């Protein structure tokens, strides 16, 4: 079955090929991979995750990140990593993963008597 959805890929614009690719053939499915973007906002701070974007390769991912995420002086350094390389904990296992820490209040260093002389603790 033919499916015509107007979808642009590089080179399609303004070319009079009607912009309609038959997406059922799979030809239109070659999406660029997804990348996660990490930005360091100032020297000395950690890189922080800011979002994700599509790019054909690492070089393009860094440039896209520069254009998408640092337009308002948000950063001085960019890391990108292809999303497929990130492994995440499973939300379904959240109970066994995180709940056991709930009643271990003794893991916080709050049970010491501090001398008055010690400030800023």
């Amino acid at each position, binding site marked *: 079955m033919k499916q015509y959805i107007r979808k642009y890929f*590089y*080179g399609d*614009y303004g070319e009079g090929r009607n912009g309609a690719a038959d997406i059922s053939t799979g030809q239109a499915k070659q999406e660029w991979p997804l990348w996660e973007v990490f930005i360091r906002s100032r020297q000395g701070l950690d890189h922080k995750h800011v979002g994700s974007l599509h790019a054909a390769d690492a070089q393009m991912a860094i440039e896209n990140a520069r254009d998408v995420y640092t337009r308002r002086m948000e950063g001085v350094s960019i890391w990108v990593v292809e999303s497929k390389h990130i492994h995440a904990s499973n939300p379904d296992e959240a109970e066994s993963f995180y709940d056991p820490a709930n009643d271990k209040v003794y893991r916080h260093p709050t049970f010491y008597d501090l001398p008055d002389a010690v400030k800023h603790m």
Partner: protein
Amino acid sequence: MYSPLIRYTLHLADNALIMGHRCSEWCGHGPVLEQDIALANLALDYVGTARNFYQYAAEMINAADPAQKATEDSLAYLRDAGDFYNNHIAELPNGDWAQTTLKEFFFSVYLQAVYRQLLNSADTQLAAIAEKALKEIDYHVRWSSEWVVRLGDGTEESKERLLKALDEVWLHTGELFASDDHDAQLIQENIAADLQLVYTHWRTTVEKVFEEATIAVPAPAKTAAWMGNGRKGIHTEHLGYILAEMQYLQRAYPGCEW
């Protein structure tokens, strides 16, 4: 008429404005969101540079004749095509993605060499504007040359499109290096960029990038009299259409603000 320095400043401003306008035409039409934003960024870089040059030109025009009351806006919106001094390549249609990126590649490499020379211009204002613009243009060169390599050394279709774009655009690269009648004087005074030196840088860079893109560099484009010279206000038909769209509002509703 304007002094050679004013004309030269307007030439630099017009180049940035017209190319900026072409880049802005992609806004909302980019092939992917990220590249759409990339082109909008390039457009904003160019328009920002154009403003700096126009403000300087307006200052000089008013100093020479206070009755003129020129502003950056009057220079951008109230001159006709024959009074624009941009190069033809800035006004060429965007075509497809290959033509857009190839055009931007040729143009930004040219501007890179021009701005580098202007850093040492005897005119400190031009030097200061060039210094700011150069950082942006260096990125334009990087961005566009990577696309040329990606398309040229990419798939069969991308290469075919790049070669087709080369056919369209190459013809107009010769005009980039055609000088204005006053260039010799301005170069003598160490104000303007020497287009001979600009060409050397341009050709070397194009050869390097094309080699990586597995594309043969054509013989230098010849300029013929019928092609005109943007530096002298003689343009392709495309500039009129750009101005019609860009200037419409100020022409129809003079002085309107929003």
